[in-house]
């Protein structure tokens, strides 16, 4: 929620070990953050393959540059900022590639899910309900994907990943007031998109 996060970095210890070349500590950080990073990259690019690739690139880059990480921002903020940057670049490349193919640029990004997506299996939920749920989720995803980049970014970070306004401000290097207003517009846009598709929420 809206409060200043404690500046103490929970990853400080592992990061210090990594700087000394401790690969096990590095692997612990990989295990800790890969899922979150993957999901951000997936929602940013809409491609599971690209997202996996981005996560790899980010960690290799983090490994190369961890010596220069001074801890002015939290480690998690730093790596997620790299994920965001790389995802943006990748998206540009993907669009450039797409433009050379006979598809419209206006096509919504494919919001495909990864092959390892785990569906919670519950006996109480009927197959139909599950299908409906899945369809609804697909719709929400399409609405988010349809947002312009700067709006999509804040909604991914805030509502999908639960980062605080301050963390988003640190990651995207935009003022907190801008985080607030972009998020407001992004949510309104998704709301309108869903309303148009479903009639009501």
């Amino acid at each position: 929620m809206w409060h200043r996060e404690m500046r103490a970095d929970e990853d400080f210890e592992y990061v210090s070990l990594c700087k000394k070349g401790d690969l096990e500590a590095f692997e612990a950080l990989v295990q800790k953050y890969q899922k979150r990073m993957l999901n951000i990259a997936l929602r940013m690019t809409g491609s599971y393959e690209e997202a996996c690739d981005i996560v790899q690139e980010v960690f290799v880059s983090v490994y190369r540059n961890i010596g220069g990480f001074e801890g002015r921002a939290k480690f998690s903020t730093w790596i997620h900022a790299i994920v965001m940057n790389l995802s943006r670049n990748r998206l540009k490349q993907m669009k450039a590639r797409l433009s050379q193919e006979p598809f419209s640029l206006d096509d919504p990004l494919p919001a495909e899910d990864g092959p390892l997506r785990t569906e919670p299996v519950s006996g109480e939920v009927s197959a139909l309900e599950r299908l409906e749920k899945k369809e609804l989720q697909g719709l929400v995803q399409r609405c988010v994907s349809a947002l312009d980049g700067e709006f999509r970014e804040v909604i991914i970070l805030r509502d999908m990943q639960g980062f605080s306004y301050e963390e988003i401000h640190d990651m995207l290097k935009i003022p907190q007031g801008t985080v607030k207003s972009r998020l407001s517009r992004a949510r309104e846009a998704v709301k309108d998109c869903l309303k148009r598709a479903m009639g009501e929420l």
Partner: protein
Amino acid sequence: MDCKTIQESLSAFIDGALSAEEKLLVEEHLKSCSKCGEALGDLRKTVERVRQIEEVEAPPWLAEKIMARVRSERPPKRGLFRTLFYPLRIKLPIEACAAILIAVVAMHILKPMQPEMRLAKAPSEETMKGETPSPVRPPDDVSMPSKKPDVAMPKKEEPSSPSSSEEGRGLAEGEQHESSRLKESVPAPASPENKSQLSGKTEIGGSHAESAKAAPPAMKPSVARSADALAKGEVKGGEAPFEPKLKALTNGEVFIQGDDISITVTNMSEHNVEIADGQFINSGFAKVEKKDDRGAWMSVELFTAANVIAKRTLKPRESHVYIWRTAGLSRNGTPVVPGIYRINLGDQTYTNNFEIKESR
């Protein structure tokens, strides 16, 4: 406040990101405006829907691939710990070389002072030279060198130097003459105190002379230089030859899908190497790589989890055998795809390439 302003604040209101004052204004407005209340409800539902989007799991190979890439990036560097705590067998020769280096440097430093030293402290100068003949002399002859420096040093300037045995004779012959020549400036060296001092110094000098291979005096500078170079070489060499060197060989070059492949890892270096302890190739320490159509090596997804890896020490020439069970390798549990493979054990250690063929 109008509805537009209120509705723009609703997003921050949901997050509790409004100031106390703003929050109060919104709450007051909501009490009397059903339209804005509806807008708030819709926005809440929207946020809830977005939050409910399910997350995907990271595939098990992702961390493996990252770690493989990171390991391949890592310069094979020794830790400070291991540098400091080499086994004695390695450490002692290094220290011996260092001692020689110090000795050689000391000789160089002392050299410019020699002319004065020779005259003023002839016996000590002898400590370097006296070694030459001493090995062939009976022990009671230790007092002999006491006079020789006086004679031997001038000879140094002569263009050609006699061999050590000739010099020994020459010294004996010229002893009388030379010592008388230097008598004026050099105090008589053969007093009992000087003798004992000398013999002590000779012992100390022993290690120096050994390093110089007991060369004749005129040869000393060049010998010293080469020893210096040698010592420098040792210093340089000290960095290179102690890298972990593992050899990894499979028990054949052609296998059939589902075979167990034995990988014998042997420590080819002169010092202990740490390897992963275990019987089976584990994705945590080894990567199975397959040649793709373009001839590039691609990591194959191993299905085992990358656990915390126990280490075992491999002594020089010692071997350890791992097994790669090719059955049930792929994510779907199907046998390994036919092709050319190798196993990457990290630190640039690879097995030979081997082929896996389709089982009939």
